[in-house]
C-alpha cells in the first residue's frame, strides 16, 4: 500500500520549495509547523551551488547602499541569527559555529579610508536605514582586534553586528532538521516546467510531477527562467567570486574581515573577488587569486608562511541591481519568489519572518520595495 509521502506520482504538498540551497532550505525550515507538508525540490550535482562555495559571513556593514530597506532587513536578520543557531543546535545537535563579535572592513591608505567613510555615511543617511553602531578605527584600534595586523592597514570600518558562521554546517543543519520533521527533501528534482490550474501548481521534473498548493522559487540563478513561468520578470546577472583556503592553524583571528576570516576549525578563507564572467564557475584565474593573496598577506603578514590548500570560484546569485527580490506572483497567486545574494546572512529572517508570511499567503507591505516592480518603472 502506498503511503501519502511515498515517491508515488500523486504527491500533493501544501508548499513546494524549488531549490535546496541556503535560501530554499531556510524558508522550508521556517515553514515547518505552519503548514502540513513541505517539499524541497533540489537539483542534481549539475546545480551551480552557491550555498557550497561561499564565504560564510553574517554581514551587515556593506549592505543596502541604494536601498535602505535592504540594510534594515539585514540588520533584523543579524539580530535573529543567535536564535536560529540555538534552535538548530537544539533540534539537530549541529553547531553551525555562529560568532558575532563584530567585523571589520580593512582599508589601506588615505584614499581608501576617505572613499569608504563617505560611502558609509551616504549609506546610513538613506531613508529606511535604521541607524546602528559603527566606527572608523585607526590602525592601532584595529590592531587591538587583529593580532599581527599589517602596517599597510591604516584604518578599518567596524560594526558590532557582523560575524561568521560555518556555511557548510548551516546547510547540513537545515537539511538534518528536514529529516526530523515535516519536510520531504527530493534530490534530483530539477524543475523543468511549472503549470498552474484550479488552485494547484504542477511541477514537472525529469522523473515525475509534484503537485503543491503553493510554491516558492528559491533556485538561485534559475529563478529568472522559472519566474518567467509564473509571470515574474526578474532580470538576473551572475557574479563570480573566487576564494582561497589556507591550511588549518591554531585560532588567531577572532574578528572576521570582509576579505579574510578564520573559521571555527582553523582554516583561513581569503576573498572576495567580484567578476562578471557569465556562468563559468569552474574556473579560477591566477591574476585574481594573486591579488587576493597579496592583499591577505598585507593585511596579516604572518599568513605569508601559511600554505594555500585550494582555491575555487562560485557564482553569486544576484538580481540585476544586487538587492533581494521577494514577491508573490499577481498572475499566479500562491507562487512566491525569493532571490538574494546573502543566503547566509538572511537565513534567519528567511526562516523566522519570510516563511510565516508565505505560509499565511501574503508578503507584508514592508516588503513591497523588494518586488520586481522596481525593474519595470515606466518612463514618463
Amino acid at each position: 500500500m502506498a503511503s501519502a509521502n511515498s515517491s508515488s506520482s500523486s504527491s500533493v504538498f501544501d508548499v513546494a520549495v524549488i531549490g535546496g540551497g541556503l535560501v530554499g532550505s531556510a524558508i522550508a525550515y521556517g515553514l515547518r509547523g505552519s503548514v502540513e507538508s513541505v517539499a524541497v525540490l533540489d537539483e542534481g550535482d549539475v546545480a551551480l551551488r552557491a550555498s557550497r562555495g561561499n564565504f560564510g559571513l553574517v554581514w551587515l556593514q556593506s549592505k543596502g547602499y541604494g536601498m535602505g530597506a535592504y540594510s534594515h532587513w539585514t540588520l533584523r536578520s543579524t539580530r535573529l541569527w543567535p536564535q536560529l543557531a540555538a534552535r538548530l543546535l537544539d533540534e539537530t545537535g549541529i553547531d553551525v559555529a555562529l560568532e558575532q563579535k563584530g567585523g571589520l572592513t580593512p582599508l589601506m591608505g588615505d584614499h581608501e579610508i576617505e572613499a569608504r567613510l563617505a560611502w558609509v555615511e551616504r549609506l546610513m543617511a538613506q531613508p529606511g536605514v535604521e541607524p546602528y553602531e559603527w566606527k572608523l578605527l585607526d590602525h592601532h584600534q584595529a590592531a587591538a582586534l587583529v593580532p599581527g595586523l599589517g602596517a599597510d592597514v591604516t584604518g578599518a570600518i567596524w560594526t558590532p553586528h557582523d560575524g561568521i558562521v560555518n556555511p557548510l554546517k548551516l546547510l547540513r543543519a537545515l537539511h538534518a532538521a528536514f529529516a526530523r520533521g515535516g519536510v520531504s527533501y527530493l534530490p534530483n528534482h530539477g524543475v523543468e516546467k511549472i503549470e498552474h490550474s484550479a488552485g494547484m501548481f504542477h511541477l514537472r521534473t525529469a522523473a515525475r510531477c509534484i503537485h503543491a498548493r503553493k510554491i516558492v522559487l528559491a533556485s538561485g540563478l534559475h529563478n529568472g527562467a522559472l519566474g518567467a513561468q509564473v509571470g515574474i520578470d526578474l532580470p538576473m546577472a551572475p557574479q563570480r567570486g573566487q576564494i582561497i583556503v589556507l591550511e588549518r592553524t591554531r585560532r588567531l583571528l577572532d574578528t572576521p574581515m570582509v576579505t579574510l576570516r578564520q573559521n571555527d576549525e582553523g582554516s583561513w578563507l581569503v576573498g572576495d573577488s567580484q567578476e562578471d564572467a557569465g556562468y563559468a564557475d569552474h574556473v579560477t584565474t591566477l591574476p585574481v587569486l594573486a591579488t587576493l593573496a597579496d592583499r591577505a598577506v598585507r593585511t596579516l603578514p604572518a599568513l605569508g608562511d601559511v600554505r594555500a590548500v585550494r582555491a575555487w570560484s562560485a557564482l553569486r546569485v544576484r538580481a540585476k541591481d544586487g538587492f533581494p527580490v521577494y514577491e508573490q506572483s499577481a498572475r499566479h497567486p500562491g507562487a512566491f519568489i525569493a532571490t538574494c545574494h546573502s543566503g547566509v546572512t538572511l537565513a534567519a529572517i528567511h526562516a523566522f519572518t519570510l516563511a510565516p508570511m508565505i505560509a499565511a499567503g501574503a508578503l507584508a507591505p514592508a516588503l513591497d520595495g523588494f518586488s520586481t516592480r522596481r525593474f519595470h518603472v515606466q518612463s514618463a
Partner: protein
Amino acid sequence: MFSRLEPPAARTVRITVDGASIACGEGDSVAAALLAAGIDACRDTAVSGTARGPFCMMGVCYDCLVGIDGQPNQQACMTRVREGMVVNRQLGAREVKA
C-alpha cells in the same frame, strides 16, 4: 605492522622521528618509512585531536601531515626521505606567529 612487498632498497637512509633514529630504504616516502617502522599515527587532527595516519598515500587525504626539518604540515606521502631528515609528529593545528 606493515611489511614490505619488495626487498628493501640496497641503500639505507637514516632519519629521526620524534627523536628516535629509524632506518629507511632509499627512495621511500616519509609516510612509507613511518609505516614500515610501525608508526601508523603520524599526527593528531587539528579539530578533535584524535590520532590519524597515512590513508591514501597519494597526496589527497592530508592525514599524513608531519613536521619535516622544522616545517609544519608537510605531506609525508609526497616527500621522500633524505639522510639526516628530522621528522616530528604533527600535534594538533600548527601555530601562526603573529
